[in-house]
């Protein structure tokens, strides 16, 4: 996994353990729980977009499926939350497989539109209240707790704190696993697909298989995030799962830097916190998202953090600022 990543993980754990003791207001802890939930989804998407070089504008569909299946099974079928979460995960993987096998033969704009279409179909179905299951436009509530109230000898004081440790614990586990994966043979294979699929194929890499596996992995992580959403909110309705959610997820990945798993978490944290901070001005939320997407894509295709760091280094060393950083030109080459 590399020394840098191990150090990074250790630092992240330390920061995460410290935060609850530094934050006075439990509301902020709630915001961090959201960061964790979206980070789960964004890590998978980052793998699919940044490493594999594909695009999905339909991950809101997987998020919604996770949330709705968890919600329906626990409230209407009386299943307990964890088995329901497992069923939601399995269901999502099946759907992702059925959609992914034909969809991943498409590229670029066609893939984007196909996934967007898939996401909207899930939204329309949830909105239409099939068999009275989804509650239609108004949704349904009463989704039970995911875990009993535990206090770990008085260390944990509130429900938000329980959620915080649970969600971030899971994020950390998956982050470690995925970091390990991208620094292995599999990760190199994925990057070679991004670099140029024909070349990857010529090297004997089964690109179709890698693409579908990455898609399944990201759908599974997004399903988990969706299930957590349902249990954390206790309530689901269609509006939060519209195509805007897919675009938000992609924006978070893009802002953090697609080609870096750490970027997915950093981007998610940055945008979720900014959104919460400026909730009072959410009238300009759409404008804000639009500006960010265009600016990042025009100026820092590698993401805000890496791109800005490179610029700074360029300015400091008085060389010509890196107009198109190395990563970006590699991506352009892969397009042809």
């Amino acid at each position: 996994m590399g020394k840098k990543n191990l150090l990074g993980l250790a630092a992240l754990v330390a920061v995460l353990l410290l935060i609850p003791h530094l934050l006075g207001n439990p509301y902020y802890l709630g915001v961090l729980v959201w960061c964790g939930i979206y980070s789960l989804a964004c890590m998978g998407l980052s793998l699919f977009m940044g490493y594999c070089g594909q695009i999905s504008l339909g991950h809101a569909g997987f998020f919604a499926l996770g949330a709705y299946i968890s919600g329906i099974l626990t409230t209407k079928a009386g299943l307990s939350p964890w088995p329901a979460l497992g069923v939601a995960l399995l269901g999502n993987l099946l759907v992702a497989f059925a959609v992914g096998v034909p969809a991943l033969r498409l590229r670029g704009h066609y893939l984007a539109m196909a996934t967007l279409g898939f996401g909207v179909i899930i939204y329309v179905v949830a909105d239409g209240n099939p068999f009275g299951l989804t509650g239609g436009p108004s949704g349904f509530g009463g989704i039970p707790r995911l875990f009993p109230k535990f206090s770990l000898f008085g260390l944990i004081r509130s429900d938000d704190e329980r959620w915080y440790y649970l969600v971030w614990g899971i994020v950390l586990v998956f982050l470690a696993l995925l970091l390990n994966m991208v620094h292995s043979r599999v990760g190199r294979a994925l990057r070679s697909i991004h670099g140029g699929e024909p070349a990857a194929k010529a090297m004997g890499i089964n690109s179709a298989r890698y693409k579908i596996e990455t898609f399944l992995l990201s759908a599974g992580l997004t399903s988990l995030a969706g299930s957590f959403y349902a249990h954390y909110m206790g309530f689901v309705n269609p509006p939060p799962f519209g195509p805007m959610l897919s675009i938000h997820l992609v924006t978070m990945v893009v802002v953090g830097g697609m080609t870096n798993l750490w970027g997915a978490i950093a981007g998610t944290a940055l945008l979720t916190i900014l959104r919460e901070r400026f909730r009072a001005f959410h009238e300009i939320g759409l404008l804000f998202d639009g500006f960010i997407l265009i600016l990042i894509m025009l100026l820092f295709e590698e993401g805000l953090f890496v791109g800005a760091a490179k610029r700074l280094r360029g300015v400091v060393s008085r060389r010509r600022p890196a107009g198109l950083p190395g990563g970006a030109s590699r991506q352009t080459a892969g397009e042809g």
Partner: protein
Amino acid sequence: MDAVCALRGRDYFPLPGRDIAIEWPMELSLSTILQYIIAGVKIGSIYAMVALGFNIIYNTTGIINFAQGEFVMLGGMFMVTLSKLMPLGLAVPIAVLAVVIVGCMFERAAIWPARGASVIALIMITIGGALLLQGGAMLVWGKNSFPLRHFSSEEPILILGATIQAQTFWIIGVLAIVMVLLAAFFKFTMTGKAMRACAANRAAASLSGISVERMILFSFALSAGIGAMAGIIITPVTLVDYSCGSMYALKGFAAAVLGGLGIPTGAVVGGLIIGLMECFGAALPFQGASSYKDGFALVVLLVFLFAKPSGIFGRAAISELKKF
């Protein structure tokens, strides 16, 4: 429960066009079938015009402009405001012009600087443009839906037991005029021929002295204008609000793919098929079929993308060569 209220209150993605939903059970007589056909052709004409806009930009740039639906929305919005100040005959060209200017500004600010960027970047940029235009419209006009008066009499006409609004004729007429003008433009004018040359091969067009930069700007202007026109004529029937564009874009794209991306005839046929299917789909004999009607176009989109991405009129060999 602050978060719950915020999420409840903010409708990210309203589904438009519920007004033509028809509830089952319903007798299938000649007049009801005719009624469905008319409703389908009406909304299908709009999808056709959106699809034409997609095609024009796609042909000159190879980009799918996700902001295409926002041009429709802006056309409707400008028209609503302008129609309060001046007669229709004056308001229509000014509204179209305003959207054309917006389209050109979008191309100059975001598309041209991004030439040579990766496909993912281009997709994100046009999505960003769509969000900007939506957000801008929300700031200017707010979140309400606005009506627009019909262009001529609001009295419906009875034909074979089916009622037709006069606006339907306006819509079909405008589609026909747009088609004829576009065909003439691409066939007879120098600019039109230059744009076709760009579509065939940008590098070769550039070598023979065509300014590709100007053609790309022009294609955005043209498709913004067509989108605006679609928005202007459909608003009296469906109302307009800041968020209605994305659904038009999705269904217009479905129409474009159905007919074969880049093929003008395909766009029109695809649009009409999607429109008709939506209206007949809403009448399918199961409970609440009409609430799923927005999904039908998308299911068709997926089926075609998966089974025959080149569309009805496209040839697989040609679409293999295209860059996405």
